[in-house]
């Protein structure tokens, strides 16, 4: 298949599947809290609707920066689709994508001139603590498989079995990242409702729709990477079931857990990350990991 056609198809799949999964996530949270909740398709409809809503650029914003940061957000997650589902390239590219995502959170807040955005921008720096467990998880995948290449990791698992059985604590660290990035997460300190919509507060109308487009792709890519590097070679049905199950689990966790204060959020993530990190090292040196 033509490479551009492949990329376009994967981006459209990521957007549609990510939107529906985020809609499902919201529905699950509502049902756990005994509310009817919006239809599953609501997140997708919202994303499209915002492209036709009235949009203005407040006087307080730095306009090129304010618009440009939404462009960068979309760009990095298109890179995520290319490095992941399309090219099966290096995990380090995806780590880089996530690192830039934190920069986007930071700069999106600061570009708006809004006090809510700026406070969210400060919290984005704190929440960068989630990158440590992610990096540790990637390092452990490398130590076990001897490669950072996603295609080779899939091949390794087709011979030796899924990595979830070999390094479960590394998988748990990665799962922590997924919980952190899920909507209404206990660790979502950058989007705490005390900050209205956090770094997105001033991005409304078209720009909010554009950010929804990127975040839907982001959710799909993160679930795809998690399933691919820990659950081995999967077919389309396997990915679909896996993504729905993870969305169910995160929805249930987020519906039953209040948001942490920033210091508790960071300390909890670092503590869980440290336990998983040293646990995995112990497993490697005691021979539990083959």
């Amino acid at each position, binding site marked *: 298949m*033509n*490479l*551009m*056609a492949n*990329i*376009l198809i994967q*981006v459209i799949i990521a957007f549609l599947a990510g939107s529906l999964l985020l809609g499902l996530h919201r529905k699950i949270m509502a049902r756990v809290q005994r509310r009817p909740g919006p239809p599953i398709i609501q997140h997708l409809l919202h994303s499209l609707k915002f*492209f*036709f*809503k*009235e*949009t*203005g*650029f*407040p*006087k*307080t*914003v730095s306009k090129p920066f304010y*618009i440009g940061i*939404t*462009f960068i957000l*979309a*760009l990095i997650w*298109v*890179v995520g689709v*290319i490095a992941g589902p399309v090219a099966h390239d290096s995990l380090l590219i995806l780590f880089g994508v996530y690192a830039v995502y934190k920069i986007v959170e930071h700069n999106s807040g600061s570009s*708006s*001139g*809004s*006090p*809510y955005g700026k406070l969210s921008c400060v919290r984005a720096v704190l929440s960068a603590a989630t990158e440590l467990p992610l990096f540790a998880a990637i390092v452990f995948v490398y130590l076990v498989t001897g490669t950072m290449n996603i295609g080779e990791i899939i091949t390794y698992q087709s011979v030796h079995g899924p990595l979830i059985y070999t390094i479960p604590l590394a998988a748990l660290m990665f799962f922590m990242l997924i919980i952190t990035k899920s909507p209404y997460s206990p660790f979502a300190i950058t989007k705490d409702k005390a900050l*209205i*919509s956090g770094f997105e*507060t*001033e991005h*409304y*109308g*078209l720009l*909010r*729709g*554009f950010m929804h*487009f990127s975040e839907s792709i982001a959710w799909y890519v993160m679930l795809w990477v998690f399933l691919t590097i820990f659950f081995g070679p999967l077919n389309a049905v396997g990915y679909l079931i896996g993504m729905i199950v993870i969305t169910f689990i995160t929805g249930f966790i987020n519906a039953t857990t209040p948001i942490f204060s920033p210091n508790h959020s960071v300390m909890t993530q670092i503590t869980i990350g440290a336990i998983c990190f040293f646990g995995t090292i112990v497993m490697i040196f005691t021979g539990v990991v083959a």
Partner: protein
Amino acid sequence: MVSQKIVSIIVLVLSTIAILACLVIDFDAWIVYTVAMFGIPAWVLSLGLLTMAKPKPEDVEGRLKEPFTGY
């Protein structure tokens, strides 16, 4: 606002041509990746800048002075 519309149309046309060119011609992978990384977000953003509703002339000042609106 008029210059924004012109820039949006130019970006939309350029990104459409670049994406279609990559669909028709087999370029090197790095060229296709570059076009996809910049072209797809540019296409969506420029289309959105053209489709978004504009505030009524009498409301413009209020909209610009009214930050922190959230949704």
